[in-house]
């Protein structure tokens, strides 16, 4: 809450709380830019953290997240295809195609992961990086051919500076999807126990997989379209939460969302403040923060027994 308030008042044009209600222009700025930006950061952070957690359950590996494992790149590929082939398509068509390519890309990743030896969990993130990298490179190559590199940049590198009223509302759909996943939080947690355990408990395993991947894909597509890919949130937050509170998703998903939202918001504020009036993209800040947090996680070691 405090962070959200700070975010509202940090920016190139300085605003003081008292000005908003006296000054029409200030109020306008608030409504058109600051508020949407703050909301967009919160939603994207929460949605990506939750999706990271779900993906880690489905893949049964702690080191993957949608934005690096091909889902985000798949979404970017979809958008690129639409922009190239049907430039006049409505946002809904754009969305659907991006979701579809994100989904195909995620399923492809899952199929590869299933063939990896389960005894070597570190192979999975390695494969994820290569897989995501290949699709990302494909996207860049196509964009290069058609002279669209600057678009690619906005999709592949998340940045909230372009967020304004009228340009982020799609993210509310992502918020809705994220909230919906909570309804079947138990099923994702059970899927995390593996196929055999899921079937033993009467779960429709394939259906849970598909629903999960669909949710991840929609959220990835929406994020990439509105603000661009934001890496690491989906990795760091679920790992911290799991370390501290375990993997009973019904209990931990709300907290995951909250932490994701806070982390992205903090990163965005840092990015805006550190070199004001210029901005550092949120992805960069997150990268640095993420690396630090992750090293700390690795070296702090598992603190067991409670």
């Amino acid at each position: 809450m405090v962070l959200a308030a700070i975010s509202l008042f940090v920016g190139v044009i300085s605003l003081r709380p008292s000005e908003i209600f006296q000054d029409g222009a200030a109020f306008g700025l608030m409504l058109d830019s600051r508020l949407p930006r703050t909301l967009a950061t919160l939603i994207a952070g929460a949605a990506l953290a939750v999706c990271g957690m779900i993906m880690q359950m489905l893949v049964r590996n702690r080191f993957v997240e949608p934005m690096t494992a091909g889902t985000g790149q798949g979404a970017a590929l979809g958008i690129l295809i639409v922009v190239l082939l049907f430039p006049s398509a409505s946002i809904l068509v754009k969305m659907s195609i991006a979701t579809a390519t994100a989904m195909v890309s995620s399923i492809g990743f899952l199929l590869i992961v299933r063939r990896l030896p389960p005894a070597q969990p570190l192979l999975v993130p390695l494969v994820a990086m290569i897989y995501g990298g290949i699709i990302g490179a494909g996207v860049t190559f196509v964009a290069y051919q058609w002279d669209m590199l600057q678009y690619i940049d906005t999709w592949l590198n998340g940045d909230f500076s372009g967020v304004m009223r009228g340009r982020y509302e799609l993210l509310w759909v992502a918020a809705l999807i994220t909230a919906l996943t909570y309804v079947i939080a138990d099923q994702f947690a059970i899927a995390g126990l593996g196929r055999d355990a899921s079937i033993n408990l009467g779960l429709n395993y394939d259906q849970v997989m598909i629903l999960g991947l669909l949710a991840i894909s929609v959220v990835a597509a929406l994020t990439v379209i509105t603000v661009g890919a934001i890496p690491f949130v989906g990795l760091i937050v679920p790992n911290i939460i799991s370390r501290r509170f375990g993997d009973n998703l019904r209990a931990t998903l709300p907290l995951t969302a909250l932490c994701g939202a806070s982390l992205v918001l903090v990163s965005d504020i840092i990015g805006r403040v550190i070199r004001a009036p210029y901005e550092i993209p949120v992805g960069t800040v997150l990268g640095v923060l993420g690396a630090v947090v992750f090293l700390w996680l690795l070296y702090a070691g598992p603190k067991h027994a409670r």
Partner: protein
Amino acid sequence: MIVVENLSYSVASAQILTDVSVTLPKGGITALIGPNGAGKSSLFSHIARLLPMQSGRITVDGMDVAPSNRQELARKLAILPQQAHFATRLTVKELVQFGRYPHCQGRLRTEDHEMVEASLHAFGLMPLAGRFLDTLSGGQRHKAHVAMTYAQDTDYLLLDEPLNNLDIAASRALMALLRRLADEEGKTIVIVLHDINFAAQYADHLVVLKDGRIEREGKPADMVTGALLADVFRTDAQVAVVGDTPFVMP
């Protein structure tokens, strides 16, 4: 009653189960024994619908083991696989609570909580209830998995080598508990055992599997003989009889 009819299963060119037909009686403890690689786990996987059926038919109390009966089957039959290893971080209690999922779809009612408590209690897991599984010893974790299977409260329990990882006291306690479940609660327990002495001591019915075929079946007292060990396990161990229970000399 679990009825397996003409079940065959092959992977690539390897024939793993060949025309298996067997009826596992309702009630009591049925032990499944056989050498390593005989196909015991594969047979279990088919009964618990973990593997798609290539040919043949399996029914549990007349209900076809098919994906369409997913939820009913989960309330009727539970399996503890040979290697239950979960990478997720759950506390013992949370794991056991998931055993109630087929009954309450995650929204635990009073009776579900009672069953979870009973299960934790039965396996002596009360002191460990709040601990994360990855902080436990192999044996303790194993007990937690058995407790989860128990909490599922099904008529049929399939346990694949549940005595692995357990010390002699825990092994005997688990077998005694299973015996009590069979005798007092009318549960049907099918169990893969490697220690033939445990099978002879606790089981009512013995099924012997070898090279993917049912080799023989019957009462332990009649079956556990030097001939069985020689024919099926290819080892010439002595068999003594203590009381009326056969006892394989190691």
